[in-house]
């Protein structure tokens, strides 16, 4: 009853999906489309784990009825990396060990990718301000901020490395 087909652009490809009324973008991504990189931390808009980009702007997908993104461009964590390798911000998160449990990481990466797209050289205060809605309960924010600074400075080493090659579990590089 009341279900309808919604179409939008998801990470560069057109998708059409039959949704029940007011299903959230988060639940449609995770349960119907298999895009589980978008996490579910609170469904209250309070943690940032479900951050996605809608037409390049960060939004909380847990608060967004999927009907509201009809015809729009949605980018999730699955669409951040280039075809081969990792985006510089992803590389920087790895190099700075900017995660422990990893649950907040997709939201952090999506948010900071668009921060750097909008604003290639943010100040430390601007970075902190941008991260205000994304909660990390393990690592603390210092390595995350360092990763963003490193990515902004172009200071990562291996951008472009094939993600499938990473890492060598022996510890040799």
């Amino acid at each position, binding site marked *: 009853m009341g279900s309808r087909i919604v179409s939008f652009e998801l990470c560069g490809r057109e998708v059409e999906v039959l949704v*029940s009324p007011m299903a959230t973008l988060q*639940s449609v991504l*995770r*349960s119907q489309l*298999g895009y*589980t*990189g*978008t*996490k*579910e*931390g*609170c*469904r*209250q808009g*309070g*943690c940032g*784990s479900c951050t996605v980009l809608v037409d390049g702007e960060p939004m909380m997908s847990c608060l967004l009825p999927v009907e509201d993104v009809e015809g729009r461009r949605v980018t*999730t*964590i*699955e669409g*951040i*990396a280039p075809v081969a390798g*990792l985006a510089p911000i*992803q*590389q920087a*998160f*790895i190099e700075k*060990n900017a*995660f*422990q*449990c*990893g*649950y*907040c*990481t*997709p939201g952090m*990466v999506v948010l900071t990718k668009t921060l750097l797209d909008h604003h290639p050289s943010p100040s430390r205060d601007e970075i902190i301000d941008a991260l205000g809605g994304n*909660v*990390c*309960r*393990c690592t603390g924010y210092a390595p995350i901020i360092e990763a963003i600074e490193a990515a902004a400075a172009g200071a990562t080493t291996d951008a472009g490395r094939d*993600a499938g090659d*990473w*890492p*060598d*579990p*022996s*510890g*040799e*590089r």
Partner: protein
Amino acid sequence: MPELKMPEPLHVVGRSVQRSDAAAHVTGRTRYAGDYTFPGMLHLRMVRSPVHHAMIRAVDLSRAERVPGFVRALTWRDVPHNVYTILGLIGVEPEEEFVLAQDRVRYKGEPIVAIVAETEAAALEAVAQVRLDLEELPAVFDVEEALQPDAPIVTHWGSNAFMFEGHPCRRVRFGDVEAGFAQADHIVEAVYNSSPIEHAPTETTGCVAVPEADGRFTVYTNTQALYFSLDNTAIILQVAGKRLHFVGGTVGGGFGGKVDVIVEPIATLAAMKTGRPVRYVFSRSEEMQVSSTRSAWRIRIRDGVMRDGRIVARKVTSYADSGAYSRQTPYALTKHAANAAGPYAIPNVSIDAYCVFTNRTPSSAMRGFGVTMASYAIEVQMDRIAERVGVDPWTIRFVNAYRNGDMKPHRKLAEDATLIETMQAAAALVGHELTDEQRAMTSAPRSPGPEGSPGGEAAAAGSRAAGAPASAGAPAAPASTAEGVL
């Protein structure tokens, strides 16, 4: 025969090593328990007590059953072994926690009825349609009030104190604490309180239970204690452990909050009863209200102290608020009792540590639980003593620091003691000037002093000789009883 390849030499210590899960984390490809979906998967939501303490007169499911998408409800009658204790696996008794409440609820948020539905929205709606007829009872929220004779009784066996081998508290007796107080120049007394702390992991507690074609059940869970969860689930469901296959993996934040077994048994039961995969993942408000917390503590400390700062007697009376059920808290009390005198050589010690039941959310494990709050209380107390005696906070700790070979109150010899060396390193780091004597100190065993007094060095004087042995051997005071070792 193929030649065995020798492992390569170890080369990791002292180097930064990339984590093997790093690329999956930054690309969103790490799979957490809640990321698993299966065809026909059902959703489980819980009907919970809206009050802290009540008798359940009746539960009316008739309206819930009419919600489109409703599949079935589970009550305590569906649970083969409904009363359990997580630590039963290591011999802790009695069984006391209800998987689903029977005739009484003991904390706000206690599960009463599990609703399984085709969609989460339908499950939520059916939960809202369940009618509970509750008779509210007086509730108790303070540990010391709970131990008063007229307090509302939380447990089903008639006492709000957990019984440790027949005693209402975990006890440590070492030397003669009253004699220590009698000889002391100062008595320093204080009470320390802490509130419950929620772990608040970013990923909420949850699992997905899947019936397999071979009759087994695969449970994808974010537990921090995989086999603990499997074993307790087997007990609760009264099935052989081999029928359960628990798949752990990356935990989206735990901090001790995911060692309780509060989602897997009921999700697996729902999968058994329906023959379909069942997802049971806490909402954020459930995580905050219902998942266990670090215990609230009240710690009363009475110390007898000599003019030179030596502590000659320490009496600790601690109360951990276990909430409505014991979970891991009795274990915490045992650890607590073993550590509540602090890393100090005190000849006369008495510790009574109570695990108290109240109508608050059950508390359980969290990072160093049992010891963390003891350390907080003891170290603030050390500063208080320093102030009273008129020495600086460093000195009070050097004077009392234990050494290798000192007997700790719970009858373990101090080994690998590093308090003195740690303080020396810390002083260097913060630029604090230590005295020559402090710089010269080590944690090496005390040399036997004259006349066989155990202390040697500066500690050779009266109080320590009068108390317990500081070097080695059996407890000297015949009145001592050794408890408190798990």
